[in-house]
């Protein structure tokens, strides 16, 4: 009896210790977000002013200036990447959802999974070899291409899941009316799958908006207003990187300011994506 209760006590202590320890690890991981967010807000806030978001960067040594061209460049590059990634991603997702049985489709799925783990810098190199090297100059377009490749795995997976998630009854409803395959898909299945596809798209956009590595040798960066994607372009994430590793205090301040803008954009996209999803699950 006594031995038994002693054993129980030690087991209870180890249980409590385990819960406390694992709980501490959870708090650590979640708290890290707050710490980083806190630093970015505190440090970045002082850099944010109208000039910062409307002006071009000033030359080295001249304080002030802004990252307006980087914001515009990021918007253009991400928009172009979305234009490229959405059709390919959604159509491939459709293919997998509709015809995706058997080995070839499994291979495509596996490739998408694998591509999602390929370092962005390798994809940047790919964009460089096929869109920069042959034309002998850097361009926003090549950066958009690299981003599009980065977006594809997520687009494909979420599109497939979204389309599979449309109830069979709805699909058969379209079939029974005598709608051709494409008619049923375009008018009935895709609209029903849209909220989930949009969620995936927002997450994909969030992912590439903060990407920096592939930009270094595709968009390359620019000190000027550049809205022609055929030319080298500035991008916000790249400006943060350049400013951060520079030796100037004023640039460090601007790097924090840029980081604040970037992290806000990415968090808004992420929360928006989840919010869109929540509205949907509540309804069904």
């Amino acid at each position, binding site marked *: 009896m006594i031995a038994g209760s002693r054993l129980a006590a030690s087991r209870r202590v180890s249980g409590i210790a385990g819960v406390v320890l694992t709980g501490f690890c959870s708090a650590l991981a979640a708290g890290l977000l707050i710490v980083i967010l806190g630093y970015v807000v505190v440090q970045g806030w002082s850099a944010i002013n109208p000039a910062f978001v409307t002006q071009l960067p000033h030359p080295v040594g001249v304080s002030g200036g802004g990252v307006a061209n980087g914001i515009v460049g990021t918007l253009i590059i991400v928009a172009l990447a979305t234009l490229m990634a959405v059709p390919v991603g959604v159509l491939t997702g459709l293919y997998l959802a509709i015809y995706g049985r058997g080995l070839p489709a499994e291979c495509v799925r596996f490739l998408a999974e694998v591509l999602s783990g390929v370092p962005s810098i390798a994809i940047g190199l790919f964009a460089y070899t096929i869109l920069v090297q042959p034309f002998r100059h850097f361009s926003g377009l090549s950066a958009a291409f690299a981003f599009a490749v980065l977006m594809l795995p997520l687009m494909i997976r979420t599109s497939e899941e979204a389309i599979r998630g449309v109830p069979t009854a709805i699909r058969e409803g*379209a079939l029974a009316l005598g*709608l051709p395959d494409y008619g049923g898909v375009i008018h009935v299945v895709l609209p029903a799958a849209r909220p989930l596809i949009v969620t995936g798209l927002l997450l994909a956009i969030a992912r590439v908006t903060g990407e920096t590595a592939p930009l270094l040798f595709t968009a390359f960066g620019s000190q000027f207003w550049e809205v022609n994607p055929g030319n080298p372009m500035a991008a916000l994430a790249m400006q943060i990187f350049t400013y951060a590793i520079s030796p100037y205090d004023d640039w460090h301040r601007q790097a924090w300011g840029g980081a604040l803008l970037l992290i806000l954009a990415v968090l808004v996209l992420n929360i928006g994506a989840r919010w869109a999803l929540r509205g949907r699950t509540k309804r069904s």
Partner: protein
Amino acid sequence: MQTTVVAAENSVPVEDEADVALCARSISAWYGTKLAIRDVSLDFRRHSISALMGPSGCGKTTFLRCLNRIHESALGASTTGEVLLDGTNIYDPGVNPVVTRRRIGMVFQRPNPFPTMSIFENVVSGPRYTGLSRNPRELKDLAEEALRQAALFDEVKDKLDDPALSLSGGQQQRLCIARALAVQPEVLLMDEPTSALDPLSTLKIEELMEQLATNYTVVIVTHNLQQAARVSNFAAFMLGDADRVGSVIEYAPTQQIFTHPNDRRTEDYITGRFG
């Protein structure tokens, strides 16, 4: 083998061949390698209501889904046999199943309005996307008539642009009937159309079916004997064997099948001696 003979004998309670709108010949259907129904042959008389009844798992829904070739759209599902629509076999290699489904409409067990569309858009989705009509005026008229035929128009005429999902279950089912009618089918297949509905909605739909029979050939699957007795002109009794392979036991005018069934098994089922 014996089943085949019986089914063939019972397959034509319709005297005049020209009165047959839809005619199934030796339909067998599989899910993968599992045989679901064997050798089902039934004729359906024009502008009448034929009921398929039987315990669950007897293959009545599977058979119904073979009549508009929707069975084969499921993964691994296949069919053999013939279905003659006005003398043409819809399983002929040259016949496009998509086109066939425009002539043979279907209403499902659960209401399945297209979730992203309004009431109006649901009704006209068939004509609009099958290319039957794209003219806005004509679509509007089509929608009104289809909704009237489905006895829904008066309830929804002021909110045609509301989401289809805002309707009650019974209204949704009548919306689905209107949607099917708007494509102008010759035959209307109904797969337990009231099983998900309350008694009042069920009554409405049953009344509606009788009206529809003046213009359409209706085939309805039901496990509800009273419903079959109330609405149908002809009734087929299907039963699964020990391997759960379904076949037709008896097919006759409804009156006869409920009063003087030929087969012992039909009688057992009707008198409630089955589980």
